[in-house]
């Protein structure tokens, strides 16, 4: 694994906008020294490294599913700060195997030691289009003879095709409070993959979803029933919303994607449960819910937090803290290993899962120790 430099394509801004990546301008804060999409650098992997990573990511995913099974069997929901009224329905959602589509593991990886799981964005991951489409075209333009860890697009289409969904259109919901356009873009891309799989789809804002109590079902603004709905809106927020109870109690009338059982994977209590079930596993960092225990270098993460907010690093060598208002539900204390430095930049590998298979990679870089919403996306290639 190495970091290389390359001259950006002439007119790269127009190129990536033509591929749908529009929000890069709206997240480009004036104080940031580099663009969100930064093709002046990229990472190079060997095929052997990528095949190893793939195998380890799929093992992590299987371990995560085992945690879900364990939590449900042992009724460990309280460790996830989930309200008690949801427990039974989460169990039903798992027992029904409500269908899931995608997720993204965030990994610490330096090219030498085993990748370490930082967290699993299993409910509402973004940076999908960059990973799936934009860096793919970059590869074709710049290194057409090389390969890329990237079958995300085809796998998404295949996944939509194989899902057995209720009749009627599948709704794709984003929240209209998103000001950057990133979430609308992610939802639109996923909707397009579903369209290409032959599904009938309808876009809707979460705020426009209506509840029809007579028939106990959700409806859109045209009165159409939401029989299946992809939502880029986290379950923990749905549960806290006024309609959350309807979504949970009448789960049989709307198939939500991602499903309710994924509330157990997108919650960082997962990290502690993984360590409990697989202590010493080479892809895990020690993690606890009740405090740092024996750890002298650790990072405190809110159970339900986003974009690296509300985190604190406690270490003899490093001190850092990010702003944020997350943490009301509690924290997890995870062993801290600083992200590796490549020319002063620290990459986090976002390893994509589609259904239960590894599907691709997206890399975000930041100069700091915590990857937040100011990080830049950089492409990668596999040298052949």
């Amino acid at each position, binding site marked *: 694994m190495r970091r290389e430099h390359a001259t950006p394509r002439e007119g790269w801004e127009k190129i990536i906008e033509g591929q749908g990546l529009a929000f890069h301008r709206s997240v480009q804060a004036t104080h940031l020294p580099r663009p969100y999409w930064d093709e002046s650098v990229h990472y190079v992997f060997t095929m052997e490294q990528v095949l190893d990573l793939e195998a380890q990511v799929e093992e992590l995913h299987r371990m995560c599913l085992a945690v879900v099974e364990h939590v449900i069997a042992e009724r460990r929901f309280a460790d996830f700060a989930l309200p008690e009224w949801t427990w039974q329905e989460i169990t039903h959602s798992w027992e029904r195997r409500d269908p899931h589509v995608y997720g993204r593991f965030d990994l610490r990886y330096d090219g030498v030691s085993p990748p370490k799981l930082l967290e699993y964005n299993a409910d509402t991951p973004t940076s999908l289009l960059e990973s799936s489409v934009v860096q*793919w075209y970059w590869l074709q333009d710049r290194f057409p003879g090389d390969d890329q860890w990237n079958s995300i697009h085809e796998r998404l289409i295949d996944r939509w095709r194989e899902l057995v969904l209720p009749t009627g259109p599948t709704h794709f919901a984003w929240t209209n409070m998103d000001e950057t356009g990133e979430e609308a873009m992610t939802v639109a891309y996923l909707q397009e993959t579903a369209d290409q799989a032959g599904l009938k789809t309808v876009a809707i804002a979460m705020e426009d*979803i209506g509840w*029809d109590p007579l028939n106990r079902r959700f409806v859109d603004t045209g009165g159409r029933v939401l029989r299946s709905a992809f939502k880029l809106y986290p379950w923990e927020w749905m549960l806290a919303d006024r309609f959350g109870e309807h979504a949970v109690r009448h789960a049989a009338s709307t198939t939500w994607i991602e499903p309710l059982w994924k509330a157990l994977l997108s919650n960082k209590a997962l990290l502690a449960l993984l360590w409990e079930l697989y202590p010493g596993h080479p892809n895990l960092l020690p993690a606890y819910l009740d405090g740092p225990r024996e750890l002298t270098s650790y990072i405190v993460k809110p159970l339900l937090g986003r974009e690296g907010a509300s985190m604190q690093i406690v270490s003899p060598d490093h001190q850092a803290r990010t702003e944020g208002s997350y943490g009301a539900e509690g924290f997890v204390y995870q062993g801290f290993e600083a992200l590796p430095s490549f020319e002063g930049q620290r990459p986090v590998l976002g390893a994509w899962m589609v259904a239960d298979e590894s599907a691709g990679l997206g890399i975000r870089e930041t100069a700091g120790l915590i990857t937040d919403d100011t990080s830049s996306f950089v492409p990668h290639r596999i040298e052949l």
Partner: protein
Amino acid sequence: MRRALSSRSVSLGALVALSSAVLTGCASPEPSPTIEYAAPYDDSAEDEPVDDAEEEPVDDAGETLEEDDEDDFEEVFEEDEVVATCVERDSEDDDSYEVVDDENCDGVGKHGAYLWYYGGTTTNGGRISGGTTARPRDVSIVTEGGDELTRSGKISTNGFGNRTSTGS
């Protein structure tokens, strides 16, 4: 043996249109893009819209109303808006009903213990009379709580959302 990790022909139609929409939206000082999606799905054969303007009036048992009934509620409802109140079906006595919490009428069916009562006035004893159980037409029906009651029931919105960032 080399494993094919990638091969595809990516076609992006609507997304490119979306890209333009986002760019346009984000050019304003307060970016809040309005997204227009290409080719919305027309599923008119799938689910019945809640708009019932063209339907015959029916009562809560799903029966088409007789002419006498229509006369009744034309008399009763001269306003544009009628308040629906949830009542207990078996409490009927001389065209008056016992009022119960509106939540009881969530999911009410033709054989349910509760039904909607349109118009009327309540008495101190918690009963209501002077209205009708026949659903009126060409008027807006609302509950005391302000929810609109459509053909398929009371549709409430704004139950999700009003957050900031969601992605991770």
